């Protein structure tokens, strides 16, 4: 490596490190606060590592002051159900839009693109009223049902399926597969990278979603983690930041683990979509 390229590479890395540090700062503050006792949080000198560690106190407080385990379980159940149902709807729809020739296909795809433009907050009130009339408010169904059809997922998977060769679909037809068998036996295995990418998007979105659970459920046995943190904050008098940040850390941790596990395939999925 020449001196010049070393300098430019060092400069580039410094810039990237600074940006990364800036992005990670709130996160670091959260973790740091979660291990401090209450008096140190508001002390005048800012220190990353507390003089007196309060890990055990804060984290046991987080688990005991609110049913955090229940909220985490709710989060898992809701995000898993949403993703499962999304796949069930998305793959056949994307297959039809990518590989079948039917009257109105372009129009149908146009609608999918159009729906991408609608923010879901805009339809929250009609959805709420709808669920009220069906009598499903304040239940797991209220948390899951509005998200079963993911137009983003249909769009993403359709772009991926466009790159799957037509010959493969024809071969499956000659081999005796029905159209639905083709979706589950040929397209699904071919689409694992794209599906992983979609899964990460979907799970992160719905795990972190605060708005809809706040609207849809009121009894705390259906609370998802973000709601749980807030309920936690109101439950005790005053703002007990130590345990609060401990709870926040606990809630973020599963997502981090999931992303690290899926990272390689996730990037593959993004990179391969629409190419081949």
């Amino acid at each position: 490596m020449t001196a010049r390229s070393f300098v430019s590479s060092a400069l580039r890395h410094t810039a990237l490190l600074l940006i990364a540090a800036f992005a990670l700062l709130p996160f670091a503050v959260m973790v740091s606060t979660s291990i401090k006792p209450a008096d140190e949080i508001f002390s005048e000198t800012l220190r990353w590592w507390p003089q007196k560690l309060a890990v055990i106190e804060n984290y046991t407080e987080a688990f005991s002051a609110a049913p955090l385990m229940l909220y985490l379980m709710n989060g898992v159940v809701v995000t898993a159900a949403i993703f499962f149902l999304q796949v069930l709807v998305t793959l056949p729809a994307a297959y039809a839009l990518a590989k079948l020739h039917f009257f109105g296909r372009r129009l149908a795809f146009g609608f999918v693109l159009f729906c991408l433009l609608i923010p879901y907050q805009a339809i929250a009130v009609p959805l709420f009223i709808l669920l009220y009339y069906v009598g499903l408010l304040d239940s797991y169904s209220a948390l899951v049902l509005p998200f079963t059809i993911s137009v983003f997922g249909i769009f993403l998977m359709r772009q991926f399926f466009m790159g799957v060769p037509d010959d493969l679909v024809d071969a499956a037809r000659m081999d005796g597969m029905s159209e639905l068998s083709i979706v589950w036996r040929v397209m699904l295995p071919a689409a694992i990278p794209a599906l992983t990418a979609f899964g990460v998007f979907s799970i992160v979105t719905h795990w972190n979603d605060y708005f809809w659970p706040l609207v849809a459920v009121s009894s705390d046995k259906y609370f998802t983690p973000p709601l749980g943190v807030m309920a936690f904050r109101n439950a005790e008098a005053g703002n007990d930041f130590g345990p609060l940040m401990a709870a926040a850390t606990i809630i973020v941790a599963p997502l981090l683990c999931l992303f690290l596990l899926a990272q390689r395939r996730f990037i593959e999925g993004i990179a391969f979509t629409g190419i081949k």
Partner: protein
Amino acid sequence: MASVNIRSVVKTFGETHVLKRIDLDIRDGEFISLVGPSGCGKSTLLRIISGLEQQSGGSILLDGATVDRIRPRDRDLAMVFQSYALYPHLTVAENIAVPLVMRRLNTTERSLLGTLLPSAKAKRKEIAGEVGRVCDALSISMLKDRKPASLSGGQRQRVALARAMVRKPSAFLMDEPLSNLDAKMRVQARGEIAALHRQLGSTFIYVTHDQAEAMTMSDRIAVMMGGEILQVDTPDQIYQMPLDLRVAEFIGSPKINVLQAALTEGDVLSFTFADTANNRVQAAFRPEAARLAGIANAPLAGVIHHIENLGADLFVQVMTAGGNLVVVRCDPGGIRPAIGDKVGIVMDEARLHVFGTDNRRIEGSYRLEAPL
């Protein structure tokens, strides 16, 4: 075993007529090639036979019974695709087993829990046996546990063949199965597919744009152009008695020589004719039907423009006075001509083909005009 009859099949995509009333009778056990330049409709015709594409008119008969309303899977045909279309997530053995699994196991037996059923186990064992026999026949047994991504082009092509064979279909449809192989592999695979046909005795319908593949493997060749079949005949007949100038030009390498000529005195061909001459025709002769000669007494003369030495043959390109490039095959053992030589060309009158201005063959025996 099956005969395939194509009855006035028409295919249109909007305004474009891809197939214009195709009629073709394919006999049981025959190896027939559909050959033509790209876009001539040969692949569309094959897809219509398979049922993957629906014709706009006409019908397809398998063993005398119409199959127009029957889905591809129930037509008892197998297809080998140009890209092989192997399932990338399945091993070679699993790929080959798919047509049998989809036909013999019902939905419950195919499901995850169904694999525990005794009936499913018995059927899967039986299928594994059949897959094994096909793999042995094509000598790909050692590849059984590999995924398609780790195979070479030639190996993938064999796996695709095995997947088609395993079901023992009544006819094989092949859509340019060799075009993704390199030249050397292609010659080898040509021989293997022809041998496979002799051994199985099934009907083979083979689509290709490569006239050499069609010539070397087929019992009969159907030459297609512009959505029509121009001629259906044995390779010998197609080569020696082309009924249409376009057939003559498409089949044979190097290409047949075509010269404008005029018929005088009924059956005398003249290459030196006045612009006002009547009876204009197109005379064609293959490079091996001509030889180089002295300028005197030759009906055509020109200057040697280029010489292609292929070892066994010497193809001499002669630029005639009229500005046509004529290719003549020479024996490399004889006197070697040199570029720039002035030579005459003499054709074998019995092997002259004469076509009208509408490209149709004009039957008859012709004499060449006496040299100037």
